[in-house]
């Protein structure tokens, strides 16, 4: 019983971190209706820049944090320009029809999906070129002590991470709902043409939204890596896959859904690791993703494709 509680607690703590990881990906989808496969690589390259600053130039932690976030936003801008900008305006270049690589009813998403994977490759190589080692030091904010609540073991730094990510997620949901800027962003996501007609600069808003989502990924990367104290070339794939699972679980575009998805993933992983070991944990992640995708739920797909950013 105690073991179960411990597993649940660990799962929930991990899951909150996953929610933060999936937030940026879900937002890019909600805002542009495109899946950004270069998401993990963006965060990884930004993290590598931070690690490089820390290792080679001894930069303090706050500078590393700021640089990671700024780099992520910058790289996000680059990705958006290269991959998604061209597909945004349908009147200039038809996304479906003879020009598109995969045409048909869902041609639009797949076009942008396909080119972002190419940038994924590019960014991964750039990161590895910057720091060729396998293990690179990252400024560590980890606290090695354990707190004890009764018999349960908790690490305080992970609690802080969980609180930060939950706070950020809920704060973002509230911002989207309550503020004018959030409303304008939702408008461009949901009804781009109508927003354009009332005079909103839709392309600029979408670019800014994308960059902000990537900045969020930078925040997530920094927080996760600062607890680990190191970054490896596998980080990009890890971030992308975890983010994908969480975003798909919660419904692409829904911010609170990301939180629910993250917590669910954390719990499933925790139990799977107890039952099947470290490999079982990874297996459970992907099996969960596949199960969610294959589950016959036509309403989910419709909602994911047609609605923009929701709370």
């Amino acid at each position, binding site marked *: 019983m105690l073991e179960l509680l411990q597993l649940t607690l660990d799962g929930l703590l991990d899951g909150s971190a996953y929610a933060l990881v999936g937030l940026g990906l879900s937002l890019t989808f909600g805002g542009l209706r495109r899946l950004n496969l270069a998401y993990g690589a963006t965060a990884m390259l930004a993290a590598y820049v931070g690690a490089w600053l820390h290792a080679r130039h001894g930069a303090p932690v706050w500078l590393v944090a700021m640089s990671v976030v700024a780099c992520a936003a910058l790289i996000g801008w680059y990705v958006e320009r290269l991959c998604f900008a061209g597909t945004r305006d349908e009147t200039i270049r038809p996304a479906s029809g003879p020009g598109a690589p995969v045409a048909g009813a869902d041609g639009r998403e797949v076009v942008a999906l396909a080119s972002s994977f190419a940038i994924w490759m590019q960014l991964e190589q750039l990161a590895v070129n910057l720091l060729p080692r396998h293990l690179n030091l990252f400024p560590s904010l980890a606290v090695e002590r354990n707190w004890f609540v009764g018999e349960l073991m908790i690490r305080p730094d992970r609690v802080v991470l969980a609180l930060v990510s939950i706070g950020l997620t809920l704060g973002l949901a509230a911002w989207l709902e309550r503020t004018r800027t959030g409303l304008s962003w939702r408008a461009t996501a949901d009804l781009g043409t109508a927003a354009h007609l009332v005079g909103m600069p839709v392309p600029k808003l979408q670019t800014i939204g994308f960059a902000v989502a990537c900045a969020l990924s930078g925040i997530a990367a920094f927080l996760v890596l600062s607890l680990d104290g190191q970054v490896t070339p596998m980080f990009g794939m890890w971030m992308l896959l975890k983010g994908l699972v969480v975003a798909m679980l919660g419904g692409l575009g829904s911010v609170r859904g990301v939180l629910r998805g993250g917590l669910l993933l954390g719990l499933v992983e925790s139990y799977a690791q107890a039952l099947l070991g*470290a490999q079982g944990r990874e297996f459970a992640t992907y099996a969960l993703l596949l199960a969610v995708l294959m589950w016959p739920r036509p309403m989910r797909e419709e909602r994911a494709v047609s609605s923009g950013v929701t709370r």
Partner: protein
Amino acid sequence: MTPNLRATRLILSCVCAVLTLALPGQVAAQSGSRPKVTLQCVSFGIGPMLECLIDLQGRDGTPLETAQVTLGALMPSMPMAHTIRPTRAESTGKPGQYIGRLELEMLGVWSVSVDISGPVRDKWSQNLLVHDCDEKARCAATPAARGDDVHMGRHRGAQPGHRP
């Protein structure tokens, strides 16, 4: 000749070639006489360069001389990229010992392969973790343990205490 007949002949001749190569060969399997290979590698410099010492011994323990040894390497995680030019390993003078150098592209886990022709024909490989070395030093490349290539495992480091 009509295109159809030409195409049919081409396809038939290809099938014949394939079948020939796929038939069990006449040469007896050499499973009992595989040489024993010991590989020791050190990395140094920028690149890095990998220098490997190979010890070949026959089944009965006698060192294998006059073998043609070729060294190659590939990255297990991206097999057909990072092509490293294979190099010939030269005999060091000591019977059964050969030395060769490989120019690698990256640090990390590499699958170093030893191709032997000459008296026997065999191919042997080992996963080695190539470390980053200081300027003038030479670091031994250690056999890669499973945790080194943190791909399948959780990205985060081991949690203290309760987590396996």
